[in-house]
């Protein structure tokens, strides 16, 4: 009975994933309602909150790209908050503050390292804008990004809007090439059916816009977020999106709001990043299960399926891969997975080259390595995520133990 159930769940999960991609293609070209109503004349005041940790000069480039936004300068500001970087990030922040005087830039520095989510909440205390845009400090933003995000708030029930995250370094190596194709497919296809019902399950923290009153409503929940007493700062984007949905607001990805991030180019960093994401998925899944009746009443079935079956698929996938390895240990080395990956890789490479030349991948054959990565992902990430739910470690950035305290800290600018 148990194996049948496992297979059933896996098949359903794969089916939903497949259907989402196929529906994504169909809806993208046929369903006008997958696109939100945009009103570019709607120009609310915007605070761009940029928490930063050990980004070095990149933070300067990020502020520069935001400063060049095609949005009325008097209607937006940047609030940059350094989370006790061990490098010269804060100096670069201040330099940007000095160099880009066309907009209001405020900088601050935490007394102790306290994580992204709390830094965002703290930074928000200094904002009075109608729309809060949270960004990652290692991204570069398109000049129209803010305009594109705010235009979507013309829909009164729109709670959070995200942008498309592209890859800045697609051709560093095989690892970045694979991520480029996956990012592109995820935003351009996978999330389209979720856009249709305005119920995107996870808006990327790279570019995340939310109504101020909504964020204020959610803020106490974010601050109180913990796992058996351990404060959580990871997966704040997924959590915030989920909370937006539960409050009856819509969530949406506007693929015209562009930003580019530098994706990990080493296996170790990629592994840590994916582990952090997988932990967030697992936590979110448990949260969904815990509050399932609330979900059933409030959310669209499409959203519930995505929230339950997709992470369940990842959990069951582990068992299936284990079974497969026991039954046929060399199954992963067969030609079918590689050929399938190569086929998908070739198609995606062509699409990316045609529609987003900036992210064009030089070696489409690199996608064959995805077979190996998917094995690692299924076998190691899920059990590791399940067994390290108590970890508050960000993973991809070195943490200075002297500045890291497991306590909440105020936002401030002690150096100025």
């Amino acid at each position: 009975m148990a194996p049948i159930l496992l297979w059933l769940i896996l098949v359903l999960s794969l089916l939903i994933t497949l259907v989402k991609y196929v529906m994504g293609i169909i809806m993208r070209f046929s369903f006008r309602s997958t696109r939100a109503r945009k009103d570019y004349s709607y120009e609310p005041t915007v605070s761009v909150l940029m928490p930063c940790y050990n980004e070095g000069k990149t933070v300067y480039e990020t502020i520069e790209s935001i400063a060049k936004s095609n949005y009325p300068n008097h209607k937006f500001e940047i609030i940059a908050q350094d989370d006790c970087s061990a490098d010269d990030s804060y100096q670069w922040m201040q330099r940007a503050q000095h160099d880009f005087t066309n907009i209001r830039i405020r900088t601050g520095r935490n007394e102790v390292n306290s994580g992204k989510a709390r830094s965002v909440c703290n930074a928000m205390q200094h904002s009075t804008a109608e729309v809060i845009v949270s960004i990652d400090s290692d991204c570069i933003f398109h000049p129209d990004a803010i305009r594109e995000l705010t235009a979507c708030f013309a829909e009164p029930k729109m709670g959070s809007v995200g942008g498309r995250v592209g890859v800045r370094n697609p051709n560093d190596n095989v690892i970045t090439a694979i991520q480029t194709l996956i990012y592109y497919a995820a935003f351009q296809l996978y999330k389209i059916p979720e856009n249709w019902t305005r119920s995107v399950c996870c808006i990327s923290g790279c570019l995340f816009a939310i109504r101020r009153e909504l964020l204020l409503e959610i803020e106490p929940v974010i601050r109180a977020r913990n796992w058996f007493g351990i404060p959580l700062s990871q997966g704040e984007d997924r959590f915030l999106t989920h909370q937006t949905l539960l409050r009856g607001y819509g969530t949406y990805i506007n693929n015209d709001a562009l930003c580019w991030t530098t994706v990990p180019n080493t296996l170790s960093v990629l592994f840590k990043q994916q582990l952090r994401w997988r932990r967030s998925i697992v936590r979110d899944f448990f949260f969904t299960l815990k509050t399932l009746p609330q979900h059933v009443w409030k959310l669209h079935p499409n959203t519930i399926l995505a929230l339950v079956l997709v992470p369940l698929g990842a959990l069951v996938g582990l068992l299936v891969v284990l079974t497969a390895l026991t039954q046929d240990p060399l199954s992963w080395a067969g030609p079918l997975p590689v050929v399938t990956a190569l086929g998908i890789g070739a198609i995606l490479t062509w699409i990316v080259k045609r529609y987003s030349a900036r992210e064009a991948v030089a070696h489409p054959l690199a996608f064959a390595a995805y077979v190996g990565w998917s094995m690692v992902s299924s076998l190691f990430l899920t059990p590791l995520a399940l067994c390290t739910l108590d970890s508050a470690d960000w993973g991809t950035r070195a943490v200075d133990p002297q500045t890291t305290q497991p306590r909440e800290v105020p936002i401030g600018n002690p150096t100025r």
Partner: protein
Amino acid sequence: MATPPVDTLAPEPKISAPARGGKLSAANKLQAVHYRLVLTLYRIFAIAVLYLVLIGIFAYAWIMGFYALNTSWAAPVILSASDEKSLDFREKLVTSQQTIEDLKVDTHKLETGLAEMREHRAALLTLAPQLRDAIAREKAHNTTAGPALAQLDRQKLADNAKTQKVLAQLKEVEAGINKDLAAGLITKGDAAQQLSALNQAQDAYTDSKIAEVLLTDSVLDKTTTGTNTLNVLEKQAELQSEVAQLDIAISVAEKQFYEESRQIDRLREAITTAKKSPYYLNASGGQTLYFAFVPYDNQAHAVVGSSIYDCYLNMILCRHVGTVKAIFAGEEQAIHPIFKTQVRGFMIQMTLDHAESAKSKTVFLGHKPVLF
């Protein structure tokens, strides 16, 4: 465009986490204890699971690497009495033996038939020269007798012609006798006597004519090919034909005999080979036999008499469990016990001191796979 002010953030009052500062309420204390307990249990569980995962990963990698490099493993195979292959083998063997028996009967019949045909042929062949000699003898006799008879026939004809002239004169003699009788010159008795003599002469002439005709026939027989001769020649031709037919029949029978004998030999060879198969041994033997599959890569270690080791976890803590008894020649295909791929190899028979080793996933030939 007016430049907006560039500013920095004013310091904020510290916000303390309520559960961490001040006095904890009883409920909070209880919750803290509950959390600590859950976290402790979770961490113990998580560490155990992660170590198990680590062990699993290393074990998997080790096993894969070990079996990729090892060249002495063999996979024990338990063949049951109702093993499909064995039963199939047995069925084929019985069929083959039955075919041999049928062929033996056939060849015996053929042998008997051949002997009879050869005897008959020999008899016919002995008859043929006798017939040929008789014909030759007759021919030689006719060659000499024919002209002589023809000469006699001609002489006879001349004699008969003369006799006919004499007989023509006898009619005058008969008329003279009748005249004499009528004249009373002679008595009736004398007349009858004289007339009887005349009739005898006529009768002798008729006999002579008959003899001449018969002689002409004899001459014809001796000097030309008559129906009798043709009959004899026909008999001779029939005899030769019968011999030729017998030759063909003997040749066909000999070929059939040869082919059937070869088929018997082939079947016997096949049965002899089959008797060396593990499946035959399994199907025919009453006792439990132990077999193992050896891939070709490990052929060098499969030597009759070499030791067999059975190991825990398929590679360590090995013990001597028996020896290789026989090596079977036929190719076998089996599923790799670890990689689950199709592997080509052959079967061996094992003598096992520990019967349970036949149930192991793998055993090792020649030596222990690792040092212990």
